[in-house]
């Protein structure tokens, strides 16, 4: 295999030869940030608009009302949560079996398939694209838990919402090794006559709780 | 201004009414037109077909013929074709450089910097949109691909047409879609070319226009051939042929064949 490596690298060097394309500096005239501050009313309005467009359900609540909202969204059934979730969020749940999943004590895929819903926090959200990013920290959990259950309730603090993609990438760049999931609405396909069908393999229902 | 005309080989041989109209129009606007008789072709056909070596003598002839514009003998070169202008601007230098003709490549660049497609010359260089034309007919405009995308003439032709007295400009559905000509594409991929032509013809007919205009006789020959085959009665006319029409010397689409020749 080292043969292939050596040969490929030398092929590349030969191909570039003397006519190496100039290693130019990259022009970055594009917007590094939006005109509105993170968490501002303008930014939130755009995020909500985009999420609704993707057919996600958006709930704007004060922190104190979050447990009530979760209780309402998670009717009778089962829910999986990451280990670092704020226990107060779940205080209002009744008739809900709560399972905790962690890297140390993971549930199997089959077990997750038997659970109705998942509640996670988020790392950052991008208003212009209607995107929520999870980075696998303890309040968000392993990637599998936000994937297999059919309902995902994602709790986003309003101050986590930035306007543009570059703002989010700058934030994530601090810990580039973390496994990321960028979520923009529930899963969807347009593979049949480009007719959009929401909800294929990922959660078919996405609730976003925007907490101020 | 002294303006040199590059008639283009196809119009010279097949559609002389277009360069004639350019001459009349520019003279009417008070300019002097010269026609360097040594000209033949810009080389586009050879380049686009991949015959770069055969393109070299053709391109050299063009550059040599129009070199005086680089020395200020003429103020500009006008070309009644978007794709030939595009070839002069984007291909001639490359052809000459690859042939190792560095000095001529530099001349080619200098010539191309003073070479304009007709609507560019009128609007950008001469600063006119109302050329005093009169043409009381229903017209639709096809923006040819090279005018639109290689040159970026934008809405200049439409601005010129809107200023023509009596002219009713009707929008063309899917105007920006290619007509399927593509030079030798129309022969090498004749079936695909014909399928694209069918759609363009249907859209032109859908406008109810009496005249189809464009800035390129090559595409007009293709679409016009389809319009004629379909018995549609829509006449293809170059932009210059409309702009040259006045109350005193009107151009009548129906006798276009006769008037032109």
């Amino acid at each position, binding site marked *: *295999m080292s043969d*292939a490596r050596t040969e*490929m690298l030398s092929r*590349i*060097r030969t*191909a570039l030869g003397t006519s190496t*394309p*100039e290693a130019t500096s*990259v*022009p970055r005239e594009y917007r590094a940030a939006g005109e509105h501050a993170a968490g501002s009313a303008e930014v939130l309005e755009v995020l909500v608009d985009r999420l609704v467009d993707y057919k996600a359900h958006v709930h704007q609540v004060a922190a104190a009302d979050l447990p009530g909202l979760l209780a309402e969204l998670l009717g009778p059934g089962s829910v999986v949560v990451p280990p670092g979730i704020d226990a107060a969020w779940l205080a209002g749940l009744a008739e809900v079996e709560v399972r905790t999943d962690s*890297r140390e004590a*993971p549930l199997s895929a089959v077990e997750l398939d038997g659970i109705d819903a998942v509640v996670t926090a988020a790392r950052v959200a991008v208003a212009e*694209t209607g995107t929520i990013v999870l980075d696998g920290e303890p309040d968000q959990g*392993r990637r599998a838990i936000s*994937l297999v259950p059919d309902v995902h309730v994602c709790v986003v603090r309003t101050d986590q919402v930035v306007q543009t*993609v570059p703002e989010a*990438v700058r934030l994530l760049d601090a810990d*580039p*090794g*973390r*496994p990321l999931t*960028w*979520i*923009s*609405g529930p*899963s969807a396909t*347009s*593979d049949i006559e480009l*007719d959009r*069908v929401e909800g*294929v*393999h990922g959660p078919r229902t996405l609730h976003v709780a925007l907490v101020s | 201004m002294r303006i040199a005309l590059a*008639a283009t*080989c196809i119009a010279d*041989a097949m559609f*002389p009414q277009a*360069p004639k109209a350019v001459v009349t129009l520019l003279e009417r606007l008070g300019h002097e037109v010269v*026609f*360097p008789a*040594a*000209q*033949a*072709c810009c080389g586009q056909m*050879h380049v*686009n*077909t*991949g*015959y770069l070596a055969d393109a070299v*003598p*053709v391109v*050299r002839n063009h550059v040599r*013929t129009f070199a005086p514009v680089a020395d200020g003998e003429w103020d500009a070169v006008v070309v009644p074709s978007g794709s030939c202008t595009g070839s002069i601007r984007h291909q001639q230098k490359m052809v000459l450089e690859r042939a190792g003709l560095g000095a001529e490549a530099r001349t080619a660049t200098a010539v191309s910097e003073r070479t304009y497609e007709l609507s560019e010359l009128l609007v950008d260089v001469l600063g006119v949109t109302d050329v005093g034309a009169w043409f009381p007919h229903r017209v639709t405009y096809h923006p040819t*691909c090279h005018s639109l*995308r*290689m040159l970026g003439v934008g809405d200049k032709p439409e601005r010129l047409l809107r200023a023509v007295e009596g002219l009713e400009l009707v929008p063309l559905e899917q105007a*920006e879609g*290619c007509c399927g000509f593509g030079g030798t594409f129309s*022969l090498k991929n004749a079936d695909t070319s014909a399928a694209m032509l069918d759609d363009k013809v249907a859209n032109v007919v859908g406008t109810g226009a009496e005249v189809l205009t464009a800035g390129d006789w090559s595409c007009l*020959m293709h679409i016009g051939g389809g319009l004629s085959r379909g018995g549609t009665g829509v006449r293809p006319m170059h932009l210059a042929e409309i702009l040259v029409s006045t109350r005193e010397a009107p151009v009548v689409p129906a006798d276009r*064949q006769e008037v032109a020749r």
Partner: protein
Amino acid sequence: MSTFLGMPATRTGRGPSPDAAPGTLGGVGRPEDPLHWGASFPDAAKAALENDQLRRNLGNATATIRSKRARVVGEVPDWEALRDAGSAIKGDVLARLPELLEELERNVTARGGVVHWARDAAEANRIVADLVRAKETDEVVKVKSMATQEIGLNEALAEEGIAAVETDLAELIVQLADDMPSHILVPAIHRNRTEIRDIFLERMGDAPPDLTDVPRELAMAARAHLRRKFLSAKVAISGANFAVADTGTLAVVESEGNGRMCLTLPETLITVMGIEKLVPTYRDLEVFLQLLPRSSTGERMNPYTSMWTGVTPGDGPQEFHLVLLDNGRTKVLADEAGRSALHCIRCSACLNVCPVYERVGGHAYGSVYPGPIGAILTPQLTGEKSDLPYASTLCGACYEVCPVKIDIPSILVELRAREVELGGASPDAADRVWKAAMKAASFAMADGARFRRAARVPRALRAISRHGVIKRLPFPGSLWTRSRDLPEPPKQTFHDWWAEREDER
């Protein structure tokens, strides 16, 4: 030959077959060489043009994506600046490719991944097959990937007794129908809902017998079918949209969640990636994650993007292999004029705006890479003589939309020049005719006086014109007059008119 139900896939490629035997699903079969199969482009295009259903499907689909793309690109104020950055980043990647690949390898390895190098398709397939066999499984799940289509990985695995299950809906449709993809992004764009239902009923063992052709129902049938596979798969195979050299991070951009399933649930993940998929820094993702979704699906952002760096203990696959693939890419790189084809991020925008693709579809190109990008990339990857560089009117619509500003029309012209050189080495009859015609035209058009005489020649055709038009010409003029009239040539050329005018003065 067509492929009959229940029989193994044919390994001799065929173009779109309008005369498929009854009882088949119209798939074109899996070709021996995914980069070169089927009839010549003009012939395959002709067959496709005769298929009205196909033309309608394609026309509707491309028109829909085109307008979606235009809308979401239009709302980005700095779109051109993003394109400039995207193009420059990719140029920089090519210029520093050896260093960046080594940097990527170091970072992936440091995070617990294993990097493999594959010079060609056979080597890549061998590496993957050995890795899968070591896991003692005979079934793997796959995320849609152009690189693995290009190397025919599924067929190679099948020969080793390993079933590779495509999990992207469109890829699944193509796989079940024993077909080839006809679009980079929507591989089954040539199929309508009824055909898809029939394919599912005939080939997807567990499809509900009362399945209708409603897209939602079809998608749910695929969900149910694949869920069992996801939950039990031990090994997944993916491609990659981007690999970040300075962190070792890989990214996969998708919509359905099948990607997340494959990238997250199995114990082992094998990613096959072309060497040009690199970006130098993590920050560069901010450019491409804006350019790609809007250009490809016409969405502000695709539903899911996954990023991972080597192995994350306790989260996702605990074994990760990255296969770096050459398979002709270094040949493309060696060509100064054509190397920017390696900037491509496979968004498919150029296909959707291409007036030729829109009418003939992807199979006519006889390559897993169809459309404008396929017309430049395929001949460069194979280095063979090809008619694809001529499969374009040079209308420029592709260049206008390409998010990384690949000047496809100029590269097509360069490749035509190469075809002329290749044609000169071993000319066929057509090459000889063209060559003679171009020589003669070159002579006539290189001198004003000679041109003036030549320009009078068409006048002879006035003898056969009626009412100002010519309806029929002998070959090769018949190629023109078959579909269009030729106007009667003028009595006097412009050259002659001008000379007369000068004389009169």
